[in-house]
């Protein structure tokens, strides 16, 4: 019995150390990856976001804010800081880490929509955080919000379960340019309506103080803020009253903090599904049309 227990303990220790080493290697590989879902964090944490115009938002930014196109059209450096599935409270900690390690932008473009104003408990793709579990700043900012379990924090490789092989084999996507992902297809058959009506309403009230804090910080540091309402396909489901509430809230904030409000929800492309990957996201072709209009408006506003 004694021999068995000692062997169990020794084996357990050997496995623990070996898995810790493998965990470290996985984290290193992922940390250095410039592919989804690590690419944006990689740039932020590595301090390599070198841009004058930075867009902040959820996956809408990743698929709509065509950085290559905007760079050539605007003649300035741009960056798409999309945080998949995130709401604004989470975007603020991404922004805080970005600001602490990178040069400041001249303009922040914030994508506004009902989804990023609906608070949810868990961000999808939580594997995007894994490589930085040992980074002090990252832990300080991210852990209080994301609530990783003790086993995920301290048992080597445990947090990689479900994602592990799949993450390294299937989901890495190389078509990423400064945070922008060019999607060349439309879903087929094209979904006619969003199947998930989302919660909305009181959450925007809860998020308003965060917006105020964010906007006042930008204003004090001379960073201009632009609110952008991106186009959605005509069948996209809006919670009744949500569009009006968003417009009134952000128009008021724009007035208060001298920000701009650009509404593209009625762009003609919303009628044509070939510009969309799904009712919520533009595809590559749609992103070019949208960014063409956006670039013209930004130029006209003197940016």
């Amino acid at each position: 019995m004694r021999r068995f227990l000692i062997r169990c303990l020794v084996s357990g220790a050997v496995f623990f150390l070996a898995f810790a080493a493998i965990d470290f290697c996985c984290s290193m590989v992922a940390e250095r990856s410039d592919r989804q879902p690590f690419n944006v964090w990689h740039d932020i944490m590595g301090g390599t976001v070198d841009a004058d115009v930075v867009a902040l938002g959820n996956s809408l930014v990743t698929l709509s804010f065509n950085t290559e196109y905007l760079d050539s059209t605007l003649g300035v450096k741009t960056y798409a800081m999309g945080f998949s599935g995130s709401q604004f409270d989470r975007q603020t900690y991404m922004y805080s880490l970005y600001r602490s390690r990178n040069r400041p932008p001249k303009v922040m473009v914030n994508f506004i929509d009902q989804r990023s104003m609906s608070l949810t408990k868990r961000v999808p793709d939580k594997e995007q955080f894994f490589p930085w579990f040992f980074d002090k700043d990252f832990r300080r900012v991210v852990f209080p919000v994301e609530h990783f379990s003790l086993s995920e924090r301290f048992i080597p490789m445990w947090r990689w379960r479900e994602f592990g092989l799949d993450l390294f084999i299937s989901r890495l996507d190389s078509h990423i340019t400064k945070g922008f992902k060019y999607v060349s297809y439309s879903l087929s058959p094209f979904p006619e309506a969003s199947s998930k009506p989302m919660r909305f309403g009181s959450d925007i009230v809860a998020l308003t103080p965060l917006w105020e804090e964010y906007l006042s910080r930008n204003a004090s540091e001379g960073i201009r803020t632009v609110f952008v309402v991106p186009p959605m396909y005509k069948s996209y489901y809006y919670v009744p009253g949500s569009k009006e509430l968003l417009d009134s809230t952000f128009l008021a904030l724009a007035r208060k903090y001298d920000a701009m409000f650009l509404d593209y929800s009625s762009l003609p492309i919303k009628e044509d599904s070939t510009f969309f990957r799904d009712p919520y996201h533009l595809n590559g072709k749609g992103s070019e049309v949208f960014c063409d209009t956006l670039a013209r408006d930004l130029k006209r506003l003197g940016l």
Partner: protein
Amino acid sequence: MTFNSLVFAAFLPIVFCLYWFVFGRNLKWQNAFVVAASYVFYGWWDWKFLILIAITSFCSWGSGLLIHKYRDERRKARWISAANIILNLGILGAFKYYDFFARSFADLFLGGNADGILLNLILPVGISFYTFQALSYSIDVYRGKIEPTRDIVQFFAYVSFFPQLVAGPIERATNLLPQFGRERTFDYGQAVDGLRQMLWGYFKKIVVADWCGVYVDKVFGDIPGHTGVQLAAAAMFFAFQIYGDFSGYSDIAIGTAKLFGIKLMRNFATPYFSRDIAEFWRRWHISLTTWFRDYVYIPMGGSRRSKGRVALNTMVIFLVSGFWHGANWTFLAWGAFHALLFLPLILTGNNRKYKEIVAGDRLLPNFKEFCQILLTFALVTAGWVIFRADDLPQVWTFLTTMLERNSLRDLSFLMDKAFVSRTFWICVMLLVEWIGRREEHGLCMKGVRSTVVRYAIYMAIILVTLLYYDDGSPKFIYFQF
């Protein structure tokens, strides 16, 4: 509590330590602790289930004593034995089969309106397993094969021993009960082998079964939306899903029992390497097959009767076996399908042709053996389609869609990474089981002398199992039976 839950990961070491260090010096206390731990394990689902298992255990224990008391008055003993069988099967029937019969009755005579006659009882997990285990005891006492035990705690431990409580192996009193009657000593080699067997069981469950199950559920959820090749692939994946799931459970159960100094019977012996259906049934779910053989088939006359009677016995045994799996026409059809495959073998006297494992000491099977294995696997897989379907019309839809939409044009899914990875892990499982086919389980590692290599293999298996582990991992398929 399931074997693939984090709760069990905490439960097992605690129970192990208490079992050996605190209760190890006194057999009675050790058995009492086994009962307590097993009841915690089982009550984790729903404490109300404990009432049923306690009733089943108590009645079977009491009937064993009464049968023994009246052993010279066969008539009385027979009545007591019959009463115990009726009681146990009555409980099983009420919980598992009543609604099925009520619904079928309503379909036939009430225009399908079963409102008011259904009981809608929740099926307690593992009820078929422990009921059969308890029954085997009282029948064996009646037959004079074993002496009844007066020790109620020992008997309760026999019925409820947690590793095999909810999905077998369905133990016999002749094997398991005496083990609870004698002092257990810790056996280092047995415990280490138990851990290996558990590890291999987890691999089969998490990496093979659950991973294949994702694809199978998707395809069976939308049969018309898939091509014939995709349906065939789903059928094949289900064959490995159910094998990985159930034999994985058995390996974990047997391995866990070894940690407690208890030897359970083997439940699977590489069934997919069988050369005909008869061999398959000697290697698949051995504890149930032998149970039906000993307590139903042989009492009916077995194969020592006229050919017509043998055919009838065979058909009955397979139908009962199918029905044991669940109250659904699909299980009966599955049983009938296997009976039809088995009948030609038994009627021509070829059902015991292959008793030894295929290929003997050779590295690979010969061409003939290989073809036999493939053919048997194909037939078994066809049977699994019936088994997996929700109802008989779905079986028909599956088969017709598979035959009608059999275009080979859309084979791109074969290159899908998830498809490739599933196939890869199935191949790994088959390779390991082929190498260890003469041993008790795939990961016996008898040929591996180097400690470094052994540890590297353990580590690789743990790592892959960990990476495929899903917190919301589905329960074991056989829990529903």
